[in-house]
Each structure stands twice: as C-alpha cells, then as structure tokens.
C-alpha cells in the first residue's frame, strides 16, 4: 500500500489516550507507541482534516472505543524522533466508520528499546501541549478516570 508521507507543515496530529493509560494526570508513555498488535503503526488523526473534539467523538462514539481525551504531537516532533507520518484514510466498509483524517506514525525498523525512547519524546511533547480536548481547564485534575 502506498501512502503519502505527511510534510513538516502538516501541523498537529491527534492521539486518543485510553483511560487506563492515565494516572494522576500523567499519560503512560505506551500511549505514544504502537502496541504489539499495531504492526508498528501508531494511529493518529490529522488536524488539517478534523478537530481535537471531532477526533475524540469519532473514537468514542463512532468506534465505541474508550478515550480520556485528545492529545497532540506534530509531524516535526515525530521527525525529531526520526519517525515519519503517513496519511492512512479509513473507508467504510471494511471499517465500521470512515475516517478520512486517519494517519499513522511509522515505528517500523526500530528496536523495542528505541520505540520506548521515541515514545518518551512524543509523550513529553504532548504533555507540554496539554490535553487538547476536553480542555484541561474544564477538568484540571480529573484526567484520571478510576477503573
């Protein structure tokens, strides 16, 4: 599958964070790296095609998946970690719901330890930007959803 690489001017990429990956307002670094089943691709959404709120609602309502909110990283921050981002729009069918803004950050070619280090870099960048939706001022310490 050929995917167009996103250029550095693309801006913010939205990332949804599972509630269990939040503790006392801090996101686990694993939220910013692919899981073992993701085949090396971290799913994100392009801010040029959707909003932080739109990405959150598509994830939680459209796909019926859990998220505690939308965080953001940029293509430049990915590039600083030697990672490239690619557009990867999802179509319905086969997907449950179409997502033209879907994109991926490619972690392939890096060892487990290197992926861990890159996730630290991306997580710190996202932390500095703070949660984009819901806005943190609405819920200053409420990021940690009990489970």
């Amino acid at each position: 599958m050929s995917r167009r690489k996103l250029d550095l001017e693309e801006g913010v990429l939205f990332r949804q964070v599972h509630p269990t990956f939040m503790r006392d307002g801090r996101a686990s670094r694993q939220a910013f790296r692919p899981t073992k089943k993701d085949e090396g691709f971290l799913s994100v959404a392009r801010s040029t095609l959707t909003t932080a709120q739109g990405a959150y609602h598509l994830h939680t309502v459209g796909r019926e998946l859990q998220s505690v909110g939308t965080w953001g990283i940029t293509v430049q921050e990915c590039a600083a970690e030697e990672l490239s981002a690619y557009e990867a729009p999802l179509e319905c069918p086969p997907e449950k719901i179409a997502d033209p803004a879907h994109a991926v950050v490619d972690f392939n070619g890096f060892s487990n330890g290197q992926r861990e280090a890159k996730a630290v870099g991306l997580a710190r960048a996202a932390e500095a930007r703070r949660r984009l939706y819901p806005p943190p001022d609405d819920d200053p310490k409420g990021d940690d959803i009990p489970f």
Partner: protein
Amino acid sequence: MARQEFATLVFEGDRFKAAMPVQALPELAAYQELVLAVAKGLFAARNPQRKNVPRGFADSFRLVLDRVEGGSAVPVLLRETTPTSEGLLGKLGHDFYDQARDVVERSIRAVAEGREIPSEMPRDALAKFNAFGRTLADDEAIVVAPPASRQGARYTREIRRKLVLHVRSEFEEPVTLVGWVVTVGREPALGFVLRTAVTYQRLDVRSSNVVFERAVRALKEETPVLLVGTGLFDATGKLTKVTEVSDLSSTEGDTDGERPGCRVSLEEQVRSLEGLAPGWYDADSPAFDPAALTWTAQLFRGVVESFDLPTPYVYPTPEGEVRAEWSGEPWEVAVIVDTRTRRSEAFATEVSTGEVHENSFTLSEAGAESKMGRFLAQHFHGRFAG
C-alpha cells in the same frame, strides 16, 4: 630488598575506565593468596616425601602494588624479595612462585577455551579461586597477564565459578537482596532470616552485632531492607544462605505520603488493575490475577523503598503486563513486568538525546529485583556513568 615485576592484572569494565575503585582492591590480596596456594601445591607434588612446606615458604612470597597504569585499571604487581627469601629460594632450587603464576594463568585460559584444567594445577588450590574475582560484575573481567604485558588469560565470573566447582559443591558471590526480616536469633550464632521480596525465599543470614541490631529494628518496624553481602550458591546457581553482611539498610517510617511521584499509593494503583475485565483494551487483553498483582506490588514496593525512588505511575499493558514509569531528568525510566513469566524489561531514556539503555531480569533468580532496582535508580538519580 629487591623488587621485580611479577604480574599485570588488567581490570576490564566500565567501572575501571577512569580509575581503580577501592572496592576491587581485595582482588589483589586474593590473587596473592591464590598464587601462594598453588605454589604450596606445586612444592608438595615435587616433594612427595615432605609433609609440609619449608619454614618461611609463605613469608618468602610477598607482592606489592607498584602502580596502577591507565587505559583501564591496570595494577602492576611487584614481587619483593629479601636476603632471607632469596636464601630459601636457593635451597629449594626451583622458583615455585613464578611457576604458580604461570599455572594460574594457564588454568584460567584452559577453562576459558573449554579445555581441561592442566594436571599440574593442585586440586586443593582451586578452592582459592573462590576469593579471587568475587567483586567482578557480569560484564567485567580481569586479564591475568605476565610481567610487562597486557595480554593474558581473561578471568570472568563464569570462569571463576567453573574453577571453584571443580573441587567444591558451592561457591560464594556478592549479593544485593531486597526483603523483609522475618525472625531473628542469637543462638546458635547471631543471625536472622530474610524473606526475599520477589522469590519469597527464606534465607539464613549470619550477621555481626551491628547488623543484628538493624535487623531487629527492621523486624519490629516491619520495614523492607536492602542487604548487601556475600551469598553461598550451590552448583546449580541457587542461593542457599548469606554468609556475610556488609550493609543492611532499612527505610524507616517511609510512606507514599512523603514520597514524590504519583499521588496515588503504589498498592492502590496495582490493586486497581484487578478491576479490569478480559477484553478491557482489545479483544485479547487478559484480566489480571490478584495473587500476581500482590506479588507485583511487593516487588515495586521493595524496589522503591530500597532504592529511594519516587512512587511510580503504574499502568496495565494490553498484553497483560504491568508497567511502572518514573519521569525524571535527565533520564526517564520504566519497567515492564510480566507476572506470568516473572521476567521484567527495564528501559532508561535520556530525555535530551533519546539515548536508551535497556536490561531484562529473571525475577525468579535471587537478587534480580535488586539488580533491576539498581538499574532504575542509577539512571533516575543520575548516577549512571556509561
């Protein structure tokens, strides 16, 4: 008094790059004892009619440290002779000490190359390898080289173990253990029983008066302790007892309330994972076994308190492992524990450069939890010098 170069010991490993650490100095005395024991054995083999070595045999062999050369820590050992010792050597008609040095080197080389130990090596003297190399870590070595050379036989922990196990069924190694004191006793000798934090192994510990008092206090206050000392291992590598304690430290009155890091207690964080049903993240995400989580909480508690780490942020992984993370500068550290295999992987990332160090640990092995704790703490506290 005359002096001549006798041997060069090249200490290899990160610890020895800048200078010779004082903790490694006992290796020099242990080397002298080893060579002397071999020399005695060589004398006995050559003089089967004699029951003992001649008077003054041991005193005639004396090594002194001339200098420590750079590049790595390279102590150069000189052999010192006096008119008395020269007189004895003249009577013996053979230099058993020089021969012993060469036999030691050849024996190390033989084991390193998977060959039989040379027949000239006295079997009784092999036990002396137990004291030589005891301070070496897994990734360190001593190259035992002849005078004026740095090329010689490479001596490691593994080679030491093989040499010792030729004549004994057990060997000693340094240990660092995290655990709880469960009983103390003054009879038949001063000592206590330590239950290790991860393996739940009950180990008899022989102790001095000072250490004993600390053990009594830790028992009374039910605080975990960090024990540094010497352990006795059987031929399979299983730790059977602690024969000497050089330090026993406890974290008195430490609580999460005073500890930096996550404001949710460690136990509460780990216990919360019990509430995750199968499929909590994706279809394959497993539930967590409560007993395994109790074990995990004890592991993290022991490591946090013993190595003075902040309360970590604890998360589940979709694969059913437990992650503990610590944000720090310049290093961020994390450990992922698989409770089913009792293995862990630890990562340290230097935030400004993205450099990553990683290590894995088999937590069913004695002392693994403290090795893991040391890896995390050295990076987190910025004491890593790599």
